[in-house]
C-alpha cells in the first residue's frame, strides 16, 4: 500500500505530481516555519506561502473558484488582518520569546501520535484510490449548488460575517 503510494508519487512522468511535490514541500517547510520562527512578522509571511500553496492544490483538484476565493480572502484579507494585529500588539523587548519551552516535548509527542493514527487510518481506508477528474464545469456546478440547495446556509453565513464584524468593532472600540 505504502509502496503503491511511493511509486505513484515518484512517477515524475506525470507533471501534476511534480507540481504537487513542489507545492507540498514548500507548504510543509512554510508551516514548520510558521510554528517555530521567533519573529511574528516572519510567521505571517510564511503563512502566506502555506496559503498560496494550498490555493495551488485547489487548482490541481479542479476547484478553481475556491482557489481564487482562497487567494482573495486569505492572502488579501486575513494575512493583512494578522499583520495589523502584530503591529498593534507589539510588546517591546518580547521579540524572540514566543515559544513555551516546557510545552515543546508535549507538542511534538502529540503531533507525532496524531499524525501516525491519521496516516494509518488514511492509508488503510483509501489505499490507492485515484482522484477522478470531474466532468463538466466545476464552477457552474458550484454556483448552482450554492444558489439552490445551499441557499439558506449561504445567507446565514453572510449574517454571521456581519455579526462578527460588528462584534469585532464593538470589542476593539475605545470607550
Amino acid at each position, binding site marked *: 500500500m505504502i509502496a503503491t503510494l511511493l511509486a505513484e508519487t515518484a512517477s515524475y512522468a506525470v507533471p501534476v505530481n511534480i507540481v504537487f511535490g513542489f507545492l507540498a514541500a514548500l507548504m510543509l517547510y512554510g508551516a514548520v516555519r510558521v*510554528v517555530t520562527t521567533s519573529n511574528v512578522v516572519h510567521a505571517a509571511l510564511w503563512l502566506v506561502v502555506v496559503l498560496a500553496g494550498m490555493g495551488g492544490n485547489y487548482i490541481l483538484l479542479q476547484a478553481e473558484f475556491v482557489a481564487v476565493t482562497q487567494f482573495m*480572502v486569505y492572502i488579501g484579507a486575513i494575512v493583512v488582518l*494578522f499583520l495589523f494585529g502584530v503591529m498593534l500588539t507589539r510588546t517591546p523587548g518580547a521579540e524572540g520569546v514566543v515559544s513555551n519551552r516546557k510545552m515543546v516535548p508535549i507538542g511534538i509527542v502529540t503531533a507525532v501520535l496524531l499524525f501516525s493514527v491519521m496516516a494509518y487510518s488514511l492509508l488503510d481506508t483509501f489505499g490507492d484510490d485515484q482522484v477522478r477528474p470531474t466532468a463538466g464545469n466545476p464552477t457552474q456546478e*458550484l454556483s448552482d449548488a450554492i444558489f439552490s440547495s445551499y441557499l439558506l446556509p449561504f445567507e446565514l453565513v453572510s449574517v454571521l460575517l456581519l455579526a462578527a464584524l460588528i462584534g469585532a468593532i464593538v470589542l476593539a472600540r475605545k470607550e
Partner: protein
Amino acid sequence: MLINQFLLLSALLFCIGVYGVLVRRNGVLVLMSIELILNSVNLNLIAFGGQHGVDGSVFALFVIAVAAAEVGVGLAIVMLIYRNKASVELDELDEMKG
C-alpha cells in the same frame, strides 16, 4: 494522482497546526496555527469533493467565511487583552485560576 497524497499532506499540516497551538504563547501566533488547521481541513473537503460531486467545495467556501469571521473576532479579543495587560502572552492570563 492518488487521493492519499492530498489527505496525507493535509494530515501533516493539521498536526503542525496542533503543535503550534500547544507550543506558542503569543495570541496572534496561536490564531495563525488555527488558520493552518482550518486550511488543512479545507484541503480534505476539496479532495473528497472531487470524488463525490461539488458539495465539498461548498463546504470549503463556508469554512473560509467562518474562518474570516473567527480571525476578526479573535484579533479584536487579542487587542483587548493587549490593552488591559500590555502583553499578549497567553500564559499570563490566569486571573480565573482559583
